[in-house]
């Protein structure tokens, strides 16, 4: 038999070729270690498939803590800046490869989840439309609040999405890079879901504007999102430390401003205005928020805040970054208070006492789940008082 075979011949099925192959295979395996990445320290009791497929994919040298490679970069930026370097962040660790997504999501489970959400979204919209539920939405809520202000929130999510580009380029570990890319992807998904809702409403409500013109005008020129816009712009383009980008976006701004806007405004109020559509989308965003919270919690609290050598230093840096980003976030919330003058008032729902209670929930959550974990002292009552000065 010739060793050059015709194109399309397969060694598994061609009898002569298969015979040759089987004859070359030893009777016994040459090694007993059948677990890939057996040298990796598992987070749980056993190495997960996620850890097998993701850990140490990155070829970093050992002078970046946790790296397994040696030597220098084979090509650098013009001028000699390294491909990846410790100087890209103020934070330190003994191991940049330590992070794990608590949900163990590598690419396949991640897209499987999102694909299921998409399929269900399509089915839901068809049922919602056929059921005529759109008739029950309060017209002002629909045409002014959803169109202009939910529409404008699309840009908030789009800006935060873009803040992940440099973080996904510059971060120093493989599991970090995958997590950062995925939580960034969720943010553009949020932005697209908002436009999807507006497009859907435009199909059901003749005259409802599908265009992004009005929402963009509100985002770029309006007063309600002014503080938010300025903060998002700074997170996206004025911040170079990739850890600071993630900290400011996911540990300060979004758990406060994002949570208030999504959960305490659109989600809480929509049912009062006969809107059962918006909660469907906001709940998906809240799912992503929850998953992101687990991921960034692992990054900043478990890996960096509790690092055996640099934990104290890191927590100090995180407190300093919080000092920088919290006032901007509070200012964004204060500006957002102006939205309550735009909605038809419902006592106990949009009145000051209800807004204050909503702010209290958000700030209390943030204090417990974020600030306390790095020893950040915060007077939530004072912050609420500041925010409420924006209430018209």
């Amino acid at each position, binding site marked *: 038999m010739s060793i050059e075979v015709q194109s399309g011949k397969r060694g598994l099925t061609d009898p002569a070729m298969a015979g040759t192959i089987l004859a070359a295979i030893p009777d016994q395996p040459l*090694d007993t270690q*059948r677990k*890939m990445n057996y040298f990796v320290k598992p987070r749980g009791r056993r190495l997960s498939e996620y850890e097998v497929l993701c850990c*140490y994919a990155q070829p970093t040298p050992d002078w970046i803590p946790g790296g397994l490679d040696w030597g220098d970069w084979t090509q650098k930026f013009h001028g000699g800046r390294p491909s*990846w370097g410790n100087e890209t962040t103020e934070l330190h660790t003994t191991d940049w490869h330590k992070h794990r997504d608590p949900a163990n999501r590598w690419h396949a489970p991640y897209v499987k989840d999102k694909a299921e959400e998409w399929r269900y979204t399509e089915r839901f919209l068809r049922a919602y439309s056929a059921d005529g539920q759109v008739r029950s939405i309060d017209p002002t809520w629909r045409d002014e609040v959803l169109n202009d202000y939910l529409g404008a929130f699309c840009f908030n999510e789009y800006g935060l999405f873009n803040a992940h580009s440099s973080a996904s380029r510059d971060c120093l570990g493989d599991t970090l890079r995958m997590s950062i890319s995925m939580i960034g992807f969720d943010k553009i998904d949020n932005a697209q879901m908002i436009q999807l809702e507006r497009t859907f409403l435009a199909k*059901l409500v*003749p005259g409802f504007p599908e265009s992004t013109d009005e929402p963009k005008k509100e985002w770029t020129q309006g007063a309600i999102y002014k503080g938010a816009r300025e903060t998002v712009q700074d997170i996206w383009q004025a911040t170079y430390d990739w850890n600071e980008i993630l900290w400011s976006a996911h540990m300060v701004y979004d758990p406060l401003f994002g949570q208030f806007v999504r959960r305490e405004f659109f989600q809480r109020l929509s049912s009062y205005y006969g809107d059962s559509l918006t909660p469907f989308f906001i709940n998906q965003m809240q799912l992503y928020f929850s998953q992101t919270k687990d991921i960034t919690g692992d990054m900043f609290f478990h890996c960096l805040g509790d690092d055996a050598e640099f934990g104290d230093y890191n927590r100090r840096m995180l407190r300093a970054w919080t000092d920088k980003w919290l006032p901007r976030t509070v200012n964004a919330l204060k500006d957002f208070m102006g939205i309550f003058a735009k909605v038809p008032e419902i006592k106990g729902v949009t009145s000051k006492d209800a807004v204050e209670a909503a702010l209290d929930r958000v700030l209390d959550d943030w204090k417990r789940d974020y600030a306390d974990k790095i020893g950040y002292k915060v007077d939530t009552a004072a912050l609420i008082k500041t925010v409420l000065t924006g209430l018209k």
Partner: protein
Amino acid sequence: MAISAATKAATDALAVNRAPVSVNAQEVHRWLQSFTWDFEKNRTKYPTKYKMANDTKEQFKLIAKEYARMESVKDERQFGSLQDVLTRLDAGNRVHPKWGETMKVASNFLEVGEYNAIAATGMLWDSATAPEQKNGYLAQVLDEIRHTNQCGYVNYYFSKHYHDPAGHNDARRTRTIGPLWKGMKRVFSDGFISGDAVECSINLQLVGEACFTNPLIVAITEWAAANGDEITPTVFLSIETDELRHMANGYQTVVSIANDEASSKYLNTDLNNAFWTQQKYFTPVLGMLFEYGSKFKVEPWVKTWNRWVYEDWGGIWIGRLGKYGVESPASLRDAKKDAYWAHHDLFLLAYALWPTGFFRLTLPSAEEAAWFEENYPGWYEHYGKIYDEWRARGCEDPNSGFIPLMWFIENNHPIYIDRVSQVPFCPSLCKGASTLRVHEWNGKKHSFSDDWGERMWLTEPERYECQNMFEQYAGRELSEVIAELHGLRSDGKTLIAQPHTSKDGKLWTLDDIKKLNCVFSDPLDAL
């Protein structure tokens, strides 16, 4: 429209038509371009000398959820095949040993390329200004995570099922030892992520993906299938379905800069450098893996190269970009010469340095030698005789006390490493075009093997300072290096690397290597 009238209109519309309504991905995507806004600080963190247009479109118009749906369907097919029918057929252990070893390298090194492409496309996502263009790069970021996981899955699968899991099971730790590693990092890692963002796109998308993924991801599946491996085609062809999007991204990168007249000053130089960078490694390494790492041959590498690289890419693909001022690289002609002998030259060196691998290599058998001679006349006289001599000295047998590296020293054939490509070469023995040039800079000597790389270094030496394996290991004994860099099997004494795949052959141990007392030296010190 007044608010109350809108509600009435919605009610009336429902009365006329109660058919279910949904929204498709395209209806959302068509608004994407309007998602951005201007602000003072809006500029990329990765400056480029090119100007990317604000209105660039993407060809694959996806939204996040639709992307996930498409990829999830592909995953179901692929993992279904792997975990069901291929496992029941014991397909992972019905692969020819020579090819099973090749996949230790091919899958892991491709994984490095895919992994670094996550960061590369993250950089492009940052650099582009048009939301659609950003979206195209974003989908690629996710694709590259997918491909990293898929390549890992090939090694994972072979670790479980193939008869020699060593190397598959710890490639991410042991891959750094040998002579193929640093060159791979240049093309697949740093070449994608370190530099002007558009230059990196040219490396990754215009050359790496549009040119070399065809042989690396498509042609390899034919070689795999011929050698009994159905795992690789199942995974790699699924990867290739995404590569079309990446090629389109590369095309759109060029489109985005084409209207800027200044682009023409740089574009063809950057393309030429990128092509030479990529081909300098891929041409010899792919040819070596296919022809020397297989039992059954599909066709001579030079033919594959001519079809995919020279005609398809250099002619048709680059031809399509001609209207944007793109020209076939000037170095294409020199690369064509490399496609004939360079992989034979490289195998000679790779085999000489076999103990530093994380895979088993095999000398060509008599029938393979005849095939080489038939397809590359003059092969036996130059290479075949050397292999006969090595075999006669017992290079496969641990009791021989001989590894071919000793033959190079005995015969005064120093092996150098090209500073720019990190590819090893032996100027006194190579049949290809490599010639030795040495420069001194910053108190250090640097060797080069060709004009194009030397020119890149002379222009920007600070970009290419990486020490090579001989500089790194100089003065250290071989077994010490192997042990330190985890080149041992699970018994703690047998080498992962071996100079044969014979089922009856003895396996070399660390003690066998230690007896050789082989100490690394840097050949540049002798100049």
